[in-house]
């Protein structure tokens, strides 16, 4: 479902800090209506990339386009159509929840009061409470309300659920699916950077794994889950040597052999079967396991 006009298009992005490369030749594109996962370890370059999308940082080289526009020089056009929730949210300490939302709404062309009321109730947020008196979870919820009520075409989330309790994390994701995604007739786009991959597993259509500023893997989530397999075999003696191209992360422990396969799992399975194992099994991998297998 590739469209002519991607919502995000990053092309050979490089961003240096002094002599070190935070992002080094990264390219990716996100089409409208998709939920795109941006996975990487701490310090892989996720936040630097997102800051380039938001014109908070300038690329050292390469280009970044959002809605077909360069964020630099088109800041108002770009930012009026997107909302951003960072991992550390901060509000003006003298404002209440109500005042904070009114302040955020004053920058927006659209503001959905019905959604605002619904979400305030759902999160049990007291509108009269000062923003400084909120817990970390409540601050994130407030930031999410501020993002969703503006009904943006693009929602950028940078490690949104790290440091939150499981209930708040669950509600956060349900809000992204329900209040945000459902209203846009399949055209609402999400770009989420996270290392808590399991929680977002059901939401992700496509993803890029970034490692040391470089793309390590880009795949559709369904394709990734059908390509990667873990094969386990036990032999009567020491397992024979494995030298297939498709096999990676080969682990041996006594008589046990465990192989992660990217691609032709049937072929690898048949080859191992021909080696006469005592037992043989194969299972799929979750996106988190694929992430770990890719970076190992």
């Amino acid at each position, binding site marked *: 479902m590739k469209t002519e006009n991607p919502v995000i298009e990053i092309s050979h992005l490089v961003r240096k800090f002094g002599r070190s490369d935070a992002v080094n030749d990264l390219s990716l594109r996100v089409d409208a209506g998709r939920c795109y996962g941006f996975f990487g370890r701490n310090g892989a370059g996720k936040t630097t990339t997102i800051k380039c999308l938001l014109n908070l940082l300038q690329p050292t080289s390469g280009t970044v386009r959002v809605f077909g526009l360069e964020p630099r020089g088109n800041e108002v056009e770009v930012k009026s159509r997107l909302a951003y929730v960072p991992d550390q949210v901060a509000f003006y300490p003298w404002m209440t929840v109500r005042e904070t939302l009114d302040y955020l709404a004053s920058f927006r062309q659209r503001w959905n009061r019905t959604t605002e009321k619904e979400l305030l109730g759902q999160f049990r947020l007291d509108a009269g409470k000062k923003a400084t008196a909120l817990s970390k979870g409540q601050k994130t919820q407030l930031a999410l309300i501020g993002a969703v009520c503006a009904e943006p075409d693009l929602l950028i989330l940078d490690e949104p659920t790290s440091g939150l309790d499981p209930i708040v994390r669950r509600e956060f*994701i349900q809000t992204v699916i*329900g209040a945000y995604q459902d209203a846009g007739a399949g055209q609402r786009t999400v770009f989420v950077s996270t290392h808590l991959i399991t929680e977002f597993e*059901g939401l992700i259509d496509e993803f890029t794994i970034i490692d040391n500023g470089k793309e390590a893997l880009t795949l559709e989530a369904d394709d990734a889950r059908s390509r990667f397999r873990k094969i386990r075999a036990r032999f009567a003696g020491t397992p024979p040597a494995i030298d297939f191209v498709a096999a990676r992360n080969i682990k041996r422990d006594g008589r046990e052999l465990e192989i992660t396969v990217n691609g032709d799992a049937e072929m690898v399975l048949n080859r191992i079967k021909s080696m006469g194992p005592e037992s043989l099994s194969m299972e799929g991998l979750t996106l988190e396991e694929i992430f770990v297998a890719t970076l190992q």
Partner: protein
Amino acid sequence: MTVSTVTMLIQLNFKSGKPAYLQVVDQFKSAAASGALRPGEPLPSIRPLAEQLRLNRNTVAKAYAELESQGIIETVAGKGCFVTENNSPFKKAVRQKMLSDDIDAAIVQAHHLQVNEKDFLELVTQRLGFFRQKSESNANNHNQKDKP
């Protein structure tokens, strides 16, 4: 059928290697075949089901579209989706061809798992019995509930 009942029927497994929308389709079909979902029964709308399963809204929409194209459910304008009265839109020959493909896949799998023909056929009979039993017990439950 409420959202919480449906989310109990549907268990997603991201280690199965099967696309999430197909898991939703197959589990609805299984629920309809075993009588856990009865003809005429309403399905939850897309948003609450997607929220509860924590599944992309578009994935649930795709699953419903697939169920509708297979004639398992139908959409009534303004009222939502309902389980159909077991009327497949396909001709008998087409239905049998579709089933043959699935049976072939099971036969291939049986070969790889070294399950012989006799055991395979026994297993088929046993599984048919399992669904028949489940269907009967679901029917009994429904009848008890329907009594005043």
